[in-house]
């Protein structure tokens, strides 16, 4: 019997299975990598927001608003980011993406009023969303305040910053 030029059925099955497994693993890797990157971007944005809040350097519109209502914010403060967490809120058919809600935890003993904390929190959230949109280069898909921010499979919103 001539066995030359033949391959075993086992080898053919393995060769057929490997590409399928590769595709599956690549899909899982992409998904988890995307979320990891988004959270890294969110931390980066939160740090930037906290730094700029602490230095009290604001865009024209914000500066004008704070001059009238939140004068304390015109002076430097000590905003610290204590942590960031996210919650997967499921698939949204409108955006055809999965919704991720991000919440930052911050602290600043120099801020006393709820209004001041809300303003600072909004700025931190803005920079979180901006950083995510910039990292995935989806700025053009969002509005001027990057709400929501998008990546390829997810879209991101921010909950009110929790002050500790």
């Amino acid at each position: 019997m001539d066995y030359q030029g033949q391959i075993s059925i086992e080898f053919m099955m393995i060769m057929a299975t490997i590409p399928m497994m590769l595709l599956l693993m690549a899909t899982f890797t992409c998904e988890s990598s995307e979320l990891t990157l988004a959270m890294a971007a969110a931390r980066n944005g939160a740090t930037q927001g906290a730094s700029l809040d602490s230095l009290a350097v604001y865009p024209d519109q914000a500066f004008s608003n704070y001059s009238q209502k939140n004068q304390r914010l015109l002076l430097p403060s000590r905003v610290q980011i204590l942590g960031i967490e996210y919650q997967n809120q499921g698939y949204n058919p409108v955006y055809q993406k999965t919704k991720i809600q991000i919440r930052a935890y911050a602290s600043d003993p120099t801020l006393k009023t709820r209004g001041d904390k809300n303003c600072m929190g909004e700025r931190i959230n803005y920079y979180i969303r901006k950083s995510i949109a910039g990292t995935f280069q989806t700025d053009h898909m969002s509005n001027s305040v990057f709400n929501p921010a998008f990546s390829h499979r997810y879209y991101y919103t921010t909950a009110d910053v929790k002050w500790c």
Partner: protein
Amino acid sequence: MSGEFLLASMVFLIILSGIIGIAEERSKSVYSIQESVEARIIAEKVAQSLEDAYSGGNGHELIVEMSPSINGRDYRVKINSSGVLVDMGSRNCFSTYLAPRVTGPKHTEKNIVLYPSKRYRITHQRDEDGNHFLVIQETI
């Protein structure tokens, strides 16, 4: 090519593209923070100079030198009765000072603007009624 190599390359490319995005954002963030720090330093420096001139008493004077730019950007420092404002066009930074009145060489100006790369002399003076005030004028 082996399956392992393909998988490793794929994972590497995915991670690399993400890292590049993060690095780019981080770089922009650092640039923005550096700019804000420089603006804050200028605001505090001018406010501190005004307070130093005031606390020095009648006749005390000092020179304040303005930086040529804030991280390569043009800026103006505006001084009025409420404080010192560093205006970078799209962003602002504010600081306060504890001097009763600040004016210019004519002694009537209520808003004084300081420009980059200039030197200004701040002089503590007193009028006939005994009121203290600071005069800011450009010097060589």
